[in-house]
């Protein structure tokens, strides 16, 4: 038997039904909705508003984060409560590029971003070097979070820090980063963060065309993330992760070094979050240290729990359900949102241990029986 080419094995990792679902999703997210937004006039009943496009794009960014979280929590059993940090870092790195693209159109008409003029800085800090380059910024979106995740993960996993201890340390990490970014002197705009973006590659960031481009791009990245995740968890690599989740010491006696496996999936997960953050910032138009708040990272875990841990598609559904309810609640009864979120989490933990996907499977099983 000859070796099956990698591309074929990659594609086979996702079942046919998955490919069909992705095809339908692609047609809707990349053709239908953009067309309904761009082509139809606003008064047409089928017109899709800018609000819907932006909300959809935002939720897809969250969905990418949820899948990244599922890879590390659902499949490797490592609960990170600091994933909001990597999301925010990706957002900040791309936000630096967006700030540079404002050029002299800011309120102070300076080459420097407004907040630096306000601080009376005369030149860019060294770490802003190259931030006017689109490609360099894209590279940094991946490199910076990867580096931080790798170094942090190396020391944490090497010291065999596990379970709740690991979760607490990741919370502390994102909290510390938030405090750092709140300071004006750090050079990332303090508590206002970055906003008032104007352009990407010279094209207006608030135009309908740019809006649907970012929307379609986010859909593409989400689909790619799902395919990649599916490949990883069906490859031998994924089975070793599942084995580590079951019994790490047994894995070691079989001759595997769990450190490298955990580090690989942890770093990849952080990078996926960063990509999502970079896509999120131009669509939402703002990034500030609030994204690094411990509560944000906890919410990510709730999306995954609601959708169903270890199912890849479940977290996407969970992110959508929670965030759609959030947009509804924060408009209708803003003061009750956190109560609802808490109740949802408790309810899911008590009655739906496998989340929405688990419920669906149970219903299917009952229908067959």
């Amino acid at each position, binding site marked *: 038997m000859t070796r099956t080419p*990698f591309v074929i094995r990659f594609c086979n990792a996702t079942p046919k039904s998955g490919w069909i679902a992705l095809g339908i999703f692609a047609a809707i997210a990349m053709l239908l909705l953009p067309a309904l937004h761009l082509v139809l006039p606003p008064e047409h009943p089928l017109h899709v508003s800018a609000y819907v496009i932006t909300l959809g794009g935002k939720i897809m960014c969250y969905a990418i984060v949820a899948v990244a979280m599922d890879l590390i929590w659902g499949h490797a059993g490592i609960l990170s409560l600091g994933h909001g940090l990597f999301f925010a870092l990706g957002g900040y790195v791309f936000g630096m590029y967006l700030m540079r693209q404002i050029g002299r159109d800011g309120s102070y008409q300076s080459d420097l971003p407004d907040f630096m003029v306000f601080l009376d800085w005369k030149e860019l800090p060294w770490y802003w070097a190259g931030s006017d380059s689109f490609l360099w910024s894209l590279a940094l979106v991946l490199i910076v979070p990867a580096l931080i995740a790798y170094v942090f993960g190396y020391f944490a996993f090497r010291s065999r820090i596990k379970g709740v201890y690991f979760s607490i340390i990741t919370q502390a990490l994102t909290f510390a980063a938030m405090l750092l970014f709140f300071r004006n002197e750090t050079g990332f705009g303090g508590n206002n963060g970055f906003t008032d973006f104007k352009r990407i590659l010279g094209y207006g960031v608030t135009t309908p065309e740019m809006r649907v481009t970012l929307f379609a791009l986010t859909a593409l990245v989400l689909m790619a993330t799902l395919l990649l995740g599916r490949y*990883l968890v069906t490859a*031998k690599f994924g*089975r070793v992760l*599942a*084995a580590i989740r079951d019994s790490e010491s047994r894995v070691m006696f*079989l001759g*595997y070094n769990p450190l*490298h496996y955990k580090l690989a999936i942890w770093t990849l997960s952080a990078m996926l979050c960063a990509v999502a953050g970079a896509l999120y910032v131009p669509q939402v138009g703002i990034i500030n240290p609030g994204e690094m708040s411990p509560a944000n990272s906890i919410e990510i875990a709730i999306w995954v729990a609601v959708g169903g841990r270890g199912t890849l598609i479940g977290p996407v559904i969970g992110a959508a359900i929670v965030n759609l309810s959030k947009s509804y609640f924060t408009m209708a009864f803003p003061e009750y949102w956190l109560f609802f979120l808490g109740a949802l989490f408790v309810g899911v933990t008590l009655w739906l241990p496998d989340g929405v996907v688990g419920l669906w499977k149970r219903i299917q099983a009952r229908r067959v029986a």
Partner: protein
Amino acid sequence: MNAVTENRHDQEWLGGTSIGHLKRHGEVDLSHRVILYLEDISVSFDGFKALNNLHLTIDAGELRCIIGPNGAGKTTMMDVITGKTRSDAGRCFFGQTIDLSTLSEAEIAHAGIGRKFQKPTIFENLSVFENLELALKTDKRARVSLFAWLGDDQRDKITDTLKQIRLDKGVGGADRPAGLLSHGQKQWLEIGMLLMQDPKLLLLDEPVAGMTDDETERTAELFKSLAGKHSLVVVEHDMAFIEQLGGKVTVLHEGAVLAEGDLATVQNDERVIEVYLGR
């Protein structure tokens, strides 16, 4: 795979870990026909001596049984050999050249020592087949596992082992989750995982606990067929099983060797009788 590339893989794999004892790695040196040599091993837990100047020599290809009352230190001895517990004093050699006290758990596994735990530890959420697949002797680095796939010969090897441990049939066959197996079947699966690693030395801690008489008998047959090509150290309480195995028997008591010889000899030893009956 020929021996040279296999060696290189071993070394690359070890290069990824922090401990650098590469020189000593490679083939186990059996020039004096001894595969395991324990000298003066002592382990204490909070002052309590679990192992007390333990001496033990296992010949290459031997099938050795270890018996002894509860708490004699049998499991602790295996912990020391596999690197799970470090001895306070003494030396522990695999072959002539490999000093086990300097290697990590994973490195010891790679050197060729496989272990079955007293409490069966299999991966409950993986299928029977996948449990064996993970145990398969192959390159186990993360970046290789990303692209790894099972070749025909590896599949055959898993299929053969499945037959050997009789888990190829029954509801779901090799695809059933390992967590659903009976206790005896779990024991066999773990033995199968040991076989997949193709270790030179097998350490088996109470392998037939929870098995039916029939299963026990078949396990004895299996072990006897493995001896010669592999070396086995079997810890058991089940005397009928030890009799079936028929190898040399070592009696441990309070962390040291009390008697050694064939089963009939040690069973007639005054001190052994006292230890077993005097409780």
